[in-house]
């Protein structure tokens, strides 16, 4: 029972952290909640679909379908988060400042919300499909444990969701002056962490080399399976034994998004100066 709770918690946690941060980062965008719930629902439907096509996915790309699928899902999420962050550098402050939004902002907001839907849907899909498979395995191997399984699954889910909610509520308490810096730094680190995970799947599939592996070993100091390790993994992509290639992915994505944000705010400011 306890093992089941931990596994479900671990799977839910990553998605919950992402949802908490993204929900906070998109506050003030009209109609956001509907898109958020839509993302979760689509993600859940998708994860059931993925779980039941595991076998066909696994046999794709000469047995490396699962790795490619995961890397692709992560890659799309990274691009979406990058786009979100760059868009937010110019629109975020306006959105939060005025509760009432003018026409163009609503249109921009809809575009932004569809990004939100995809990012959340993908996160739920990835973590959800593994949970479905795991629970399915228990349910079929031991008929008596079905109710225990449901119970453990519900506790794990609630615990994971609670962490996501705490993160969200905590972020909303950050003063507006620092709010956008705080959320965009979190989204930036989230995206970099996902890029590093994508690299790990590509290494596992032998598509790219691992280079130095492991680059460091902090498993004695802060094990990735510990609660703080799991939280840090969800937040900033912490790993106790990453490979050199993962680090390259992490740094390149981090730098690329940061530069994109800098460039966007520079052109935005230049435009504003030109108008006035």
């Amino acid at each position, binding site marked *: 029972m306890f093992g089941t709770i931990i596994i479900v918690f671990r799977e839910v946690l990553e998605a919950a952290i992402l949802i908490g941060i993204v929900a906070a980062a998109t506050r003030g965008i009209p109609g956001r909640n509907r898109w958020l719930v839509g993302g979760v629902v689509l993600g859940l439907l998708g994860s059931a679909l993925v779980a039941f096509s595991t076998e066909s996915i*696994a046999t794709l790309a000469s047995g490396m379908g699962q790795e490619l699928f995961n890397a692709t899902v992560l890659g799309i999420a990274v691009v979406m988060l990058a786009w979100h962050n760059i868009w937010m550098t110019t629109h975020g402050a306006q959105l939060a400042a005025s509760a009432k939004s003018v026409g163009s902002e609503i249109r921009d907001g809809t575009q932004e919300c569809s990004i939100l839907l995809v990012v959340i849907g993908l996160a739920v899909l990835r973590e959800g499909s593994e949970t479905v498979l795991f629970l399915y395995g228990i349910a079929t191997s031991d008929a008596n444990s079905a109710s225990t399984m449901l119970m453990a699954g519900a506790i794990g889910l609630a615990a994971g969701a609670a962490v996501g909610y705490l993160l969200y509520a905590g972020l909303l308490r950050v003063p507006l002056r620092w709010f956008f810096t705080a959320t965009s730094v979190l989204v930036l680190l989230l995206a970099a962490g996902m890029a590093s995970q994508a690299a790990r799947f590509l290494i596992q599939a032998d598509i790219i080399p691992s280079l130095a592996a492991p680059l460091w070993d902090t498993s004695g100091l802060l094990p990735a399976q510990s609660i703080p390790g799991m939280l840090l993994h969800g937040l900033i992509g912490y790993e106790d034994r990453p490979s050199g290639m993962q680090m390259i992915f992490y740094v390149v994505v981090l730098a690329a998004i940061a530069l994109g944000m800098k460039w966007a705010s520079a052109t935005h400011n230049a435009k504003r100066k030109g108008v006035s």
Partner: protein
Amino acid sequence: MISARLVSFLIALFAVLLLVSPGFADDTEFALVIKDHRFQPAELLVPAGKKIKLKVQNQDSTPEEFESHDLNREKVIPGNSTATIYIGPLKEGRYPFVGEFNEKTAQGVIVAK
């Protein structure tokens, strides 16, 4: 613009790293079997400093997730099927792994020498 140059440099660096990646075909292959939620053999001896192609055959009808923090690997293996997982090159040492879906019984270790 400095930033544009930096981005193109990083992209170029990345591309080079992808190209120079050695695609050695002579991977050393090893096999593991999952049966009744246990790994056979529970201890697998592999050469250190070489990339290993690990074939894991799941003979159970339920899915299993091969997971190892020490090897930095995780892969779901559907019931009654075989998965390939590339590991290493490893330094000498012991690398425990588990079947995450049945962690109580599904435990094993890869020993690199």
